[in-house]
């Protein structure tokens, strides 16, 4: 192949596919490759055969039903209904290929019991999670959030979102530890307590995102694509292809080729080197010797997450028989530094056979026995039919790519939604294109060509 591309993209995970789609729409010439014969890389959804092959190298048990009824996610994430991923889907019109349903409920473990996360601030104030006086204080806090106007100092009540640490905000409103846990973990979805000492803006933004997402459809702040998360990369890949992007699955990458100054030249696959100006890829394409340019590391290890994909024959106990839930176990409740998350979906989302439930328990690894760290979550599930445990490294790019034209994306982190994936998309765009990503509404009218 002697064509030259603007971008070669390695790996068809969601981050890479969103970038591929946006770059193609921008008129860039893109070649997108994946070593696997399926779309999605680490954000794929697998059928039963693929799942058992990946984790067991065996055939799935026949009693689980038809292969094609399954789409088991490898990472536990939902979409915030009012989040950035939703905006990207709508602006690119990728929504036309997909269908979404709500996640039915959001729960939190409190004093050893599973409690429903109230769906609005006001419901929180009314719920049994707080005592009478605490309710009053929480009400004042939420009113402050709601009324805050950037350009009206009076509404700030002395808080400078960019300076005041969150813990001082809690102190100002006199909120108890339990309420802080609720706001910081169940609503703001912070994974640990380090946010307390950081400026309040981050947490403020997260509360606004949570409440506006909750307000959109009602039951939970989350939505989820039918047939699994793997539909998202496929949708963006189609967008890319429609704008001229070339797709090659099942293409092993033998070598990333650099010139003698260590700058990217091309990608060698099947003995041939395809050239491009720039390469974007997920960390797995740079984690072995062949991916390193001139002895320089392209990525660094930030931490690890442990995930257990569990097949259940019943909904998670004490969650009102919901067909799908998020259940958060805040760190403080179980003496950890990081929260444990449980994400459950079911046949309602067309990801498994009827009467089967897929629950994923995950957390950031803190010890040498990661699987044991999931125990507080696993024991809430009831009998587990089968379980697949994986410890995944979280890699970050070691450099901006401005020198070598290599733009590495981040691994999927342990957050429960796609907001950090969108941040990464914008970051790679900024590094690779040199300007801010501006989402334009597609005006080409694909599909508007209706016969009169």
């Amino acid at each position: 192949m002697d064509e030259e591309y603007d971008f070669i993209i390695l790996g068809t995970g969601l981050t890479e596919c969103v970038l591929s789609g946006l770059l193609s729409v921008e008129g860039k010439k893109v070649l997108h490759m994946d070593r696997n014969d399926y779309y999605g890389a680490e954000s794929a959804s697998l059928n039963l055969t693929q799942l058992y092959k990946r984790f067991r190298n065996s055939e799935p048990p026949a009693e689980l039903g038809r292969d094609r009824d399954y789409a088991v996610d490898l990472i536990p994430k939902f979409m915030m209904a009012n989040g950035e991923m939703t905006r990207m889907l709508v602006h690119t019109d990728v929504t036309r290929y997909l269908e979404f349903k709500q996640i039915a409920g959001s729960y939190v473990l409190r004093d050893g019991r599973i409690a429903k996360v109230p769906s609005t601030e006001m419901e929180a104030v009314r719920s049994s999670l707080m005592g009478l006086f605490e309710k009053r204080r929480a009400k004042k806090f939420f009113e402050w959030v709601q009324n805050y106007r950037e350009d009206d100092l009076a509404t700030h009540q002395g808080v400078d979102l960019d300076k005041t640490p969150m813990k001082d905000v809690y102190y100002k409103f006199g909120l108890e530890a339990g309420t802080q846990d609720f706001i910081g973990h169940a609503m703001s979805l912070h994974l640990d307590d380090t946010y307390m000492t950081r400026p309040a803006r981050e947490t403020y933004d997260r509360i606004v995102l949570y409440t506006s997402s909750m307000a959109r459809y009602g039951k939970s702040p989350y939505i989820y694509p039918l047939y699994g998360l793997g539909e998202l990369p496929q949708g963006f890949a189609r967008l890319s292809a429609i704008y001229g992007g070339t797709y090659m699955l099942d293409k092993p990458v033998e070598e990333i080729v650099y010139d003698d100054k260590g700058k990217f030249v091309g990608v060698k696959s099947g003995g041939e080197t395809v050239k491009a100006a720039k390469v974007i890829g997920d960390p797995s394409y740079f984690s072995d010797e062949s991916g390193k340019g001139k002895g320089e590391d392209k990525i660094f290890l930030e931490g690890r997450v442990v995930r257990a994909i569990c097949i259940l024959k019943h909904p998670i106990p004490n969650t009102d028989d919901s067909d799908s839930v998020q259940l958060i176990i805040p760190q403080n409740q179980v003496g950890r530094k990081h929260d444990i998350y449980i994400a459950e979906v079911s046949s309602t989302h067309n990801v498994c056979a009827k009467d089967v439930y897929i629950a994923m328990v995950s957390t950031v690894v803190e010890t040498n026995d990661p699987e044991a760290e999931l125990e507080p979550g696993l024991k809430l599930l009831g009998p587990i039919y089968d379980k697949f445990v994986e410890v995944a490294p979280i890699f970050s790019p070691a450099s901006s790519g401005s020198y070598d034209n290599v733009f590495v994306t981040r691994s999927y982190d342990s957050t429960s939604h796609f907001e950090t994936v969108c941040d990464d998309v914008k970051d790679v765009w900024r590094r690779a294109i040199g300007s801010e990503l501006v989402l334009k509404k597609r005006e080409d009218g694909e599909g508007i060509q209706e016969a009169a």
Partner: protein
Amino acid sequence: MSAPAAAPAEAPARPVQVKLVLLGESAVGKSSVVLRFCQNDFQANKEPTIGAAFLTQRCRLEDKVIKFEIWDTAGQERFRSLSPMYYRNAQAAVVVYDVTKSASLEQAKTWVKELQRQANPNIVIALAGNKVDLVRPSSDSDEPSTPTSATSDDDEADDATATPEDDAAEGGDEEGAVAASESRRQVSREEAEEYAKECGLLFFETSAKTGEGVVEVFTEIAKKIPLDHILASTRGPGGAAGRGAGRGGPAAGGASVNLNEEESAKKDACAC
């Protein structure tokens, strides 16, 4: 020829939405067949259209209106990188081959297998032998081309490194062919029809260039599709195509959510 099956404005019933996917080797004329069907147009030396791989066309059948939601491959067939999403909930497929390239029929057969593996088991499949204009003796050719030149075409048929430019050139080659006659034919009608019969596929020979057989492909598909069944199952999970599905009413486990809320009202208004 005008798009004869298009429904008049006073169409009585709510249209039944049918997802139809195109399959077949690159350059056999998939996009051209759809362009002929939807816009009654043909472009020789057509470059792959950017930004249009999703067309809709309404088709009237007795008292029913079918709205075909036609998915083009967007070039993802080139390296066999179509996604499961493409096949998902398709109620119909048109598998196209080129009557002047025997290898393209072999490819068509593998796509039929792929459909049987990945798609909805009740999918209605039509096999279309396209570019039949190239083998019509009525053309302006003075002498038949040699089988040798046709064979050299064949060599390129499964070229995994073909590029869009190559394909366009290749198509143009055929389009501007000096000789057009039955001797360019590499796939006999009988052979393909026999195969189609064995596999329970509808069968047609078509020309996107002249329009021959194109509308028939879609009207025969429309006749074979269990429309009442689709209408009835629009409410069940996985019952209907794409974004239309959740609209019929609440499905078990809650209705789909519509992310395009602001725009949807506008779109719905002009859809019927």
